[in-house]
């Protein structure tokens, strides 16, 4: 692996850059057209910063640096290191998609790097879990959120959601129905069936609805004012009595 990192670093400094094409599974977009020499120089600098950060275990810094390096240059080595960094922090779905992008957009790249990318893609793909959403309406798009982030409703039924291992929350909003929510834990490689059970939203008269909205609104704003004033006075309180107050020093 060290030899490979060296080789891809060498490639970054010697190969001519090229732009990455943009397809559906593009995790990091490369530049449009050929990058300028200034961009390549900055990309090289970001790549070095990323390598140093990765060597020290500062993965978020490494990830930002490698992504930026690829955005500027479109060089395969930066995308490879982005993928391996996702793998290192357990974001297997993104790691898999990045390896797929690399193999698709840089098929004529360094053979050792591509061989390694294929092997790692297969490894991380085996650790991605799938949530299979059943019971969604066939001809009506729904709003799907996974861990509070929107996911596209592709129209496939059942709808499959790729996720990393761990705890997840799926929420489906459908016009005229109460939101459906599922929470649970999945392990890498699991395929979990989720049956969405929608309950029709109760109908109300308009006047009653207006009164309800106004009442809720007044209560929410009043609650917000009280909460805000409390927060303003005290801020967050520590949960323990073993307190280090850095601000007081």
């Amino acid at each position, binding site marked *: 692996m060290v030899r490979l990192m060296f080789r891809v670093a060498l490639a970054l400094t010697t190969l001519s850059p090229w732009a990455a094409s943009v397809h559906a599974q593009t*995790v990091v977009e490369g530049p449009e057209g050929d990058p300028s020499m200034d961009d390549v120089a900055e990309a090289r600098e970001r790549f070095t910063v990323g390598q140093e950060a990765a060597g*020290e*275990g*500062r*993965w*978020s*810094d*490494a*990830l*930002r640096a490698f*992504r930026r390096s690829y955005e500027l240059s479109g060089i395969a080595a930066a995308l490879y290191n982005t993928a391996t960094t996702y793998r290192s*922090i*357990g*974001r297997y779905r*993104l790691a898999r998609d990045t390896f797929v992008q690399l193999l698709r957009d840089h098929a004529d790249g360094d053979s050792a790097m591509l061989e390694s990318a294929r092997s790692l893609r297969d490894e991380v793909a085996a650790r991605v879990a799938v949530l299979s959403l059943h019971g969604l309406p066939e001809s009506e798009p729904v709003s799907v959120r996974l*861990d509070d982030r929107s996911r596209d409703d592709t129209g496939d039924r059942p709808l499959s959601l790729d996720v*990393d*291992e*761990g*705890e*997840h*929350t799926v929420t489906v909003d459908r016009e005229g129905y109460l939101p459906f929510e599922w929470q649970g*834990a999945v392990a890498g490689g699991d395929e979990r069936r989720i049956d969405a059970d929608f309950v029709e939203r109760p109908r109300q008269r308009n006047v009653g609805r*207006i009164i309800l*909205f106004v009442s*809720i*609104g007044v209560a*929410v*704003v009043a*609650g*917000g*004012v009280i*909460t*805000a*004033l409390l*927060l*303003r006075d005290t*801020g*967050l*309180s*520590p*949960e*323990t009595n*073993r*307190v*280090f*107050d*850095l*601000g*007081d*020093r």
Partner: protein
Amino acid sequence: MKRVWWLALVATLFVFGCTDNAVLELTVEVPAAPADRTEPLFAFLEVNDSATVVDAETEFRFPDTPDGVQLGAEVGDVAYSVVASPAQYESDVLVSVRYCVDRRCNGFGDEFTDRIRFRIERPFFDGVRTRIRLELGEFTDEVSDEETPIDQCSVEGCGDPGLASYCDATGTHLCGP
């Protein structure tokens, strides 16, 4: 209609409720005391923000540090709270643990004990309570000089407990930039 009320709430909170601190709830798993040890042994934890460190001597010299915790017969968790003001939001948190015969590491020979060091990358976000768990491993007299880095993506906050990472696809923490 609902959106209007939510906007009103957000605006109200924005006007009245700007918090000006952040809290890192720090759980430390301390080891069991060695079986052949007859006198008490304490785990003394010190914390600082990286921006105020001048040199190794001043790194952890602060008077408000809580007393050390005596090692028991079994591994145990000890909870600490690290409170920060906006001046510390861009800093890393440095954590040091020493095993001493005195609960404040003022005992005979305690000045020669080595520090187990951690550096937690920028764990503070305004108005947010974050969490991290540090494991010290088994007790040993031979402590590595190397600092253990804790990546910001490992700092729990703004997401469900138990996530593999608390950063989004761009490497940005879920709590903010």
